[in-house]
């Protein structure tokens, strides 16, 4: 492994900016999918179970 290392990066000089990009994309995907599945797929369906209207 060591021979493949190009440089040693310590804690203080490391900013995981690539991780931030990936995780921001993931956040967006989760948000959009949730809105789609909850509000369109689920609430848009027939025969929704409601409380008994008295």
């Amino acid at each position: 492994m060591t021979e493949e290392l190009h440089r040693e990066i310590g804690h203080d000089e490391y900013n995981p900016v690539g991780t931030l990009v990936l995780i921001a994309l993931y956040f967006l995907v989760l948000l959009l999918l949730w809105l789609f599945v909850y509000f369109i797929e689920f609430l848009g369906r027939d025969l929704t179970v409601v409380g008994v209207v008295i």
Partner: protein
Amino acid sequence: MTTYIERFPAEARVIRSTFFTAFIALGIGALFGLLQVLHRTDVHRLVDSADYYHILTIHGVLLALTFTIFFLAGVFTWGLTTSLDRGVVDVRFTWAWYGLMVGGTALAAIPMFGGLIDGIDMSAGVLFTFYAPLQAHPLFYLGLALFIIGTWLAGADWIWTYLAWRRENPDERIPLPTFMVLTTTLFWYLSSLGVAIAVVVFLLPWSLGLLEQVNPLLTRTLFWYFGHPVVYFWLMPTYMLWYVLLPKVAGGKLFSDPLARVVFVLFLLLSTPTGIHHQYLDPGIAEGFKFIAMTNTMFLLLPSLLTAFTVVASVEHGARQRGGTGYLGWLGALPWRDPVFTGMALAGLMFAAAGFSGMVNAGMNINYLVHNTFWIVGHFHLTVGTAVALTFMAVTYWLLPQITGKPIWSRSVGLAQVVTWFVGMTLMSNAMHRGGLSGVPRRTAEPQYENFDFTPAFGTMAELDAGVVIGGSLLFLSAVLFLGNVFVSLTGGKDLTSIPENAYAEALSGAEDGPLILDNLKLWLVIAVLLVVLTYALPIGAIIDRGGLLGPGGSPYPLVVESGRAISIGLGEVVA
């Protein structure tokens, strides 16, 4: 350079045995999985549809319990001994728990396979969840109980070894892998108690005819008290491997040791008081209890989301040390030729997708949409079937040489294997999720009905079936490649010089940066117990209050005739 087998030859032998047991279960489970996809889609029905459920029971139990738990017992033993740099206290005890787990599995397997064989009057066609009044042969429950006691002894072995280390090193921080083993063990004691009570107090005596009936809602609730946490029993070792091994093979360091500890503490606290989210659509449980389980489950997302960040950041650290640059360009600098890395990375990616379907499953009222549909099957094939299973297979390419001294036969076949699993699971799980949204049920031999058709949002059912069959076949192929690679590796000679040193990733921010209170496991255990009592005391009390401890009844099924059951059948006839 020291490999694991050189440092710990006795422990390596036990871990080899746990791995081989796991692999036998994987082989049978994978074959039965293939039979199921062919049967459900009506491509080829090798067995009678009534026997499909025996195949499904074996597939579920062997893969979800036997494969995963034997493998993780090996992984934990490796992680504990490596990080403490000391062997187990008494390896005979280690063999004892392994033996008990094997014995339990073998006992339970007799009726599970017996159900498939004409002339054997034993069966356990009750699926992985064994909801009463479905009834299995007593050997099934007995085997299960022994297996669980075996896992408890394994946990005791790990705690015992840790305490011995603690006496030798009174002032050191608990090494991270050991911390993860211990938190998982404590959590497992707490959560497996539910199924132990269900099996030992109710189901085993009932199957022996000592109890006339049980409370189906109570045993079901006790099952899910364990049934959701058990997924964390598979996931926590997977997370451990992502935290301590993945950064290493990526050429980097773990981003933050203290945050990894926070994540495992959160799992210890939150994993158990969530099981009722499997019972959102159960009558007999008040909506308020369901809402509490929902909020607990949603907060349980937190440790997983934190893990996503820490693990990706650790991998990125490796990529940048290897010369990677840019916002996304660093991804190209990762060791994609290495099946250990690629397998774990693809498993993690699939788990990100599984995160979404899991969020839907956790959402209380949206459960009406997906409950018991094929969607659920798609979901857990991404979690236990990929995040866990693919990680375990990938890590085998790293661990097997450590515990046998023999290099992997072909790393290229290994790479092809993990990629095949990923592609196969993509196709199968996509079709399962989509089928579920159109209402296709899970756990059925023939999801083709006479009086109505399922209508997918787009495309056709035939396309979804094709997705399941092609995906399932690729998965089976991948399992065969994996087992073949392992087998050929074992027939090869030892070559210790070509095997890397047994080690795990260092941390950029080490244990010394974390507050000492993180290591106070007694405190966390007390809080975990308290949370469980707060969440479960009232619903279980209410269920017992409603139906009675031994329930309002229902009829045992199937009514098999054999000695142990004669009493209850006799009683049944009196009632009838």
